[in-house]
């Protein structure tokens, strides 16, 4: 579940514990844990709220859809080094 990975990613980038994120958003820590473990998924509005509480934004916009298979096919053509560099550029914290 992508929302689980996003919440965890945003929280870790912000250097927050689940308890701290729960306090910032007025929720119980167990709720944050269940979202991060993909037991349940938050609504889109809640997801944006959680990400913002970590100091990030989650812009939602419509873009042309590329099938996951097609993306994967392209990715497999990359060298291991380029795959890792791509990962690092994706997960790099924003400046400031």
């Amino acid at each position: 579940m992508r929302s689980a990975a996003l919440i965890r990613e945003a929280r870790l980038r912000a250097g927050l514990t689940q308890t701290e994120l729960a306090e910032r958003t007025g929720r119980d820590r167990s709720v944050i844990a269940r979202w991060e473990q993909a037991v349940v998924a938050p609504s889109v509005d809640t997801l944006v709220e959680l990400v913002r509480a970590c100091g990030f934004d989650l812009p939602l916009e419509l873009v042309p859809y590329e099938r996951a298979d097609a993306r994967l096919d392209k990715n497999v053509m990359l060298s291991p080094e380029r795959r890792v560099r791509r990962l690092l550029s994706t997960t790099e914290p924003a400046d400031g």
Partner: protein
Amino acid sequence: MAEDPTRFDPYGLFETLDRHRISYIVVGAFARVVQGAEELTRGVDIVPSTHPENLRRLGQALEDLNARGPTLDQATPVHEFATDCGQLKVVVEPAGTRGYDDLRRAATREPLGRGVRPSVASTGDLARMLAALGREHDLPKLQMMRRVMELERGELQRSRAIER
């Protein structure tokens, strides 16, 4: 060094492990990315050889990395450390495998740049681990690994056809 929880420097991590001549196999999300999957991660999972000398050297490497976490011992299946280079998970025997010696057979050294060439678990073994965990939220990752395996097989058949 001031702790920066956002830092993820896999190169620094692998360089430190190699400097201490640790025998290990990279597994988990980072390994899957190296093998071609599309995933996000800010950590590295490794399966070390459990030879006592290797574990002793790993302990030294963890000190160099300023690792914060549990004491390293063979009885604990998974150790999670926060290091100056990001999260490092040390897994003695990942689900569905018999540990380092089992994974070493099919692992390959992958050039990641900066002279770093860690041993990375094969796509087949990475899929085996995900399947053994049996977690519903891992299903898309498992499907992705199986697709990567199919693509690898297709590539292998093509290169064999060219050789003929």
